[in-house]
């Protein structure tokens, strides 16, 4: 079979030819040996041998495979033709490589996050338990559960096997005396069974270990086993220090095992869920598996039946009805990530579409330029079919090369996306370029080649040979120019839609960026440390750690002030219910709460609006005090000053002694009256770290890592001092991250920045392509109408007139596209609506900005090629 392939033919023919020559030479030699003169010998040999050419052809005839042969010939011809116009070919291939690469990268994300089944056995039997609440006719759902709901489902819903996950994150893992920062997940005992993945070595933890007072155990991930234990064989059974407590390693999960939502952890520990503490609030997320033989309807029925029991911790409200139900796990996970992926996919598809349109337009222009060539071929007997096939083969070769290069760009594109988005969208790490994605890329290339190859091919097949060959020398506007113009108009329209989307995102970003933070952001450095550690279980030990490290810091020259707080602005805060001491116990409201050390307001530069700041006199043993912010005053103490009122929020009753300015935080509270947006002012209570309880510390430190903040002119030196002060106070505590406050603030905007940048890059690409399209049309018009303009100029028109008339054509094309795009934007921007803040989707500034930008681009793209008319020599143009 191999020797039948056409590209092997040349080699084979040479071989045969050499063989026959050798035969002749040998024959001649023999004849000469027999005494025949050389000339005569050669003649005789030729006579006896016959014509070698004929024999070669005879052999070739035996080998012919008609279809392969034709395609091969077409392909070789196409490559020759394409190589003659390297600028066109390179532009086309590079354009395709970029857009196919971008599409591949984004689609691989969409595939991994939205379409692909979860990487667990029987993934369609996995579901999340959700709560459906109807309040005054408005229904909302949430996947967050409390301990009672978990227990009700675990004990009284026989068709479901449930596991819950609690807050996890960074903790201290001490190996041979060295602390490392490990990522851990706290899950209930059923986790491994529900997901259907058992440890590769050892075992998963059991129900006894998942109960308060059970022995302390942990299961490692494969990566952690390799990274921290060098994949030692005897790891199972060893004891490590986790959160300051010895834990026995009982198992190691198989390689590639990820948590339900695709996040990679180093280790898992029993959650020990109960109905108090963490389990007293909505702090769990669930994954359940439908048991064999049970149906979803049955499970839903059972969930409704345990409703009473499940909601026993939730305060009954007359206007609220609550229900438990199930949502397919894949759907539940996709819900959290769908919007940005859908936005990006749409944007990248739009650019792909424009690129195809652009290439179609380029190919049409090329086909125009080749009318003579094609007509000649037809006149010489080349069938229309052959011509169409030839043009299609050219398109397929371009698309194939573009697709191949696109896979490479896609690979790097995906890596780039994951690096950029990984911080905000952890699940993106699940995506990879694999067989499916490669199949996508091939499919896309095939579609694009059809999309841009078909138009010129069809046009060529309708060519009037006689007219093309007699060479009608064009004047203005041939009727069959309109397809290109329509293509360019649609390119501009799609580009405008993307520009509008970008404009709206940019406006949102500017709005968020220009928010008044509420504190002095300059010269602040922060470091956070996990105190989820058995040695820090009491107020006394924690405050001692705080005081000692702060003393070290304030003693360091150059450090102006230092403080510790549970959280910092621009991040999500702890939320908690509170009530006034003089009001009914049933009337608790939600607020944010943060413990601080006395110097906090000064270090952050948060102003005291009325009353007083915490002082050194407020400490353990003195009457408990609290500060609230203005948002708190506005929402919860509208009628009378908050100062002097007594509140209860975790622990003792406290007196409000001051009101402080608002700072911006990531929203964690919803409901009527709460500000919404990416960064908001929400009600906040500040309490002193020295006036809290052991249980409060233990609870909040399972979710939050306290933050050390210092203010210093030299932030570099301050970072070093921070790390040193903490590790000198406790060498077994690893400092997880040292960031400037600017860094914290910039991280808070990661999502907005990322989407704005990605959509912006795509929009720029779209507009660039559209500009190339306009440029192409105008350049083509100029080339075609040289003669006409030659006449006009000879008759007294100025070159400037010519330039104006030609470029106006391009600008009007762009204007038409802009209007179409503007209309198209109205429905299309619904995709970005949920990412906008303080910007209307119909924002006039954005539309005006896009219109101006487009006008500038269109003018440049139209005038540049038209300028060639200035160099037009009328005499020469007329002669040719």
């Amino acid at each position, binding site marked *: 079979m191999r020797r039948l392939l056409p590209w092997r033919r040349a080699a084979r023919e040479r071989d045969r030819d050499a063989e026959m020559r050798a035969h002749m030479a*040998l024959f001649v030699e023999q004849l000469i040996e027999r005494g025949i003169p050389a000339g005569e010998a050669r003649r005789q040999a030729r006579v006896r*041998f016959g014509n070698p050419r004929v024999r070669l052809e005879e052999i070739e005839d*035996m080998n012919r495979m008609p279809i392969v042969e034709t395609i091969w010939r077409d392909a070789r011809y196409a490559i020759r033709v394409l190589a003659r116009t390297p600028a066109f070919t390179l532009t086309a291939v590079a354009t395709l490589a970029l857009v196919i690469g971008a599409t591949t990268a984004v689609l691989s994300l969409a595939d991994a996050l939205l379409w692909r089944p979860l990487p667990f056995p029987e993934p369609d039997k996995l579901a999340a338990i959700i709560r459906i609440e109807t309040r005054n006719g408005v229904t909302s759902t949430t996947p967050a559960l409390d301990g009672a709901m978990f227990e009700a489902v675990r004990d009284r819903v026989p068709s479901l096997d449930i596991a819950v996950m609690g807050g996890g994150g960074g903790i201290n893992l001490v190996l041979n005396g060295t602390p490392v920062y490990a990522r851990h997940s706290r899950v209930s005992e059923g986790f491994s069974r529900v997901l259907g993945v058992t440890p590769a070595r050892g075992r998963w933890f059991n129900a006894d270990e998942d109960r308060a007072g059970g022995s302390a155990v942990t299961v490692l991930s494969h990566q952690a086993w390799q990274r921290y234990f060098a994949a030692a064989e005897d790891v199972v059974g060893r004891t490590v220090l986790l959160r300051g407590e010895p834990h026995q390693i009982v198992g190691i999960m198989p390689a590639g095992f990820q948590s339900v939502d695709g996040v990679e952890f180093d280790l898992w520990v029993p959650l020990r869920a109960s109905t108090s503490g963490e389990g007293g609030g909505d702090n769990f997320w669930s994954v359940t598996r439908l048991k064999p033989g049970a149906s979803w309807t049955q499970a839903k029925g059972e969930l409704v039946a345990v409703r009473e029991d499940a909601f026993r911790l939730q305060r009954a409200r007359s206007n609220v009805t609550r229900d438990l139900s199930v949502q397919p796990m894949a759907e539940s996970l996709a819900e959290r990530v769908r919007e940005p992926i859908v936005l990006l996919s749409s944007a990248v598809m739009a650019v792909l579409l424009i690129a195809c349109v652009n290439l179609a337009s380029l190919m049409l222009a090329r086909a125009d330029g080749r009318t003579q060539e094609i007509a000649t071929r037809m006149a010489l007997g080349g069938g229309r079919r052959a011509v169409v096939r030839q043009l299609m083969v050219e398109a397929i070769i371009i698309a194939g090369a573009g697709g191949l290069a696109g896979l490479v760009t896609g690979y790097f594109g995906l890596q780039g996306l994951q690096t950029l988005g990984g911080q905000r969208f952890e699940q993106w790490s699940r995506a990879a370029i694999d067989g499916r994605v490669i199949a996508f890329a091939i499919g896309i290339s095939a579609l694009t080649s059809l999309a841009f190859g078909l138009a010129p091919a069809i046009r060529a097949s309708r060519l009037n040979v006689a007219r093309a060959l007699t060479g009608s020398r064009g004047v203005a506007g041939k009727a069959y120019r309109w397809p290109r113009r329509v293509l360019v108009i649609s390119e501009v329209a799609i580009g405008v839609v993307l520009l509008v989307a970008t404009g709206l995102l940019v406006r949102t970003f500017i709005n968020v960026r220009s928010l008044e933070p509420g504190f002095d952001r300059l010269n602040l450095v922060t470091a956070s440390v996990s105190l989820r550690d058995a040695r820090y279980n009491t107020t006394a030990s924690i405050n001692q750690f705080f005081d000692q490290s702060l003393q070290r810091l304030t003693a360091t020259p150059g450090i102006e002030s230092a403080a510790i707080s549970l959280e910092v602005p621009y991040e999500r805060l702890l939320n908690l219910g509170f009530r006034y001491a003089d009001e009914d116990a049933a009337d608790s409201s939600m607020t944010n709460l943060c413990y601080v050390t006395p110097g906090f307001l000064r270090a952050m530069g948060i102003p005291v609006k009325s009353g007083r700041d915490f002082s050194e006199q407020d400490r353990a043993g003195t009457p408990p005090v609290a500060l609230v912010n203005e948002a708190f005053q506005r929402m919860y103490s509208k009628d009378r000053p908050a100062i002097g009122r007594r509140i209860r929020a975790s622990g003792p009753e406290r007196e409000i002694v001051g009101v402080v300015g608002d700072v911006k935080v990531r929203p964690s509270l919803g409901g009527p009256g709460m500000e919404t947006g990416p960064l908001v002012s929400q009600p906040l209570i500040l309490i002193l770290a020295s006036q809290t309880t052991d249980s409060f510390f233990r609870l909040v430190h399972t979710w939050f890592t306290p933050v050390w903040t210092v203010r210093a002119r030299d932030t570099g030196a301050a970072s070093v001092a921070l790390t040193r002060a903490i590790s000198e106070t406790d060498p077994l505590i690893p400092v997880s991250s040292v960031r400037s406050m600017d860094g914290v603030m910039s991280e808070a905007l990661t999502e907005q920045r990322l989407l704005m940048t990605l959509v912006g890059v795509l929009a720029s690409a779209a507009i660039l392509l559209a500009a190339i399209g306009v440029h192409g049309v105008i350049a083509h018009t100029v080339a075609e109408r040289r003669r006409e303009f030659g006449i006009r100029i000879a008759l007294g028109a100025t070159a400037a007139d010519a330039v104006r008339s030609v470029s106006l054509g391009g600008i009007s094309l762009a204007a038409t596209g802009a209007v179409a795009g503007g209309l198209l934007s109205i429905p299309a921007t619904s995709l970005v609506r949920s990412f906008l803040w303080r910007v209307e989707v119909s924002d006039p500034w954005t539309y005006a900005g896009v219109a101006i930008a487009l006008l500038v681009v269109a003018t440049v793209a139209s005038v540049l090629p038209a300028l060639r008319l200035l160099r037009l020599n009328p005499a020469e143009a007329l002669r040719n």
Partner: protein
Amino acid sequence: MRRRAGNDRDLLGGTLDLLILRVVRAGPAHGLQIAESIEQKSDDVLLVEQGSLYPALHRLEERGWIEAEWGLSDTNRKAKFYSLTRAGRKHLAAEESRFTQLARAIARVLRST
């Protein structure tokens, strides 16, 4: 002018293939040797146009009955040597007996009357 493939086969009734196989059974031989061998053994009755060997050689090689390898002739010239494959040997045996039968049958018909 191109002659249709198979003219020579018609001429010799497919016997050229058989003759080639028979010649290379003795051991590897190049084109000229094969041609001369056929001429000599048939007492110059079967004078083939030497070039017509090559389409036949190609056909036989394609079917896997012979295989080719470049080598050196007695006079130290490069030449392609053909030898019989296992399949070729089998085929030759079958063809030989078929042809002998056929030749005998023809001879019988010619001798009658």
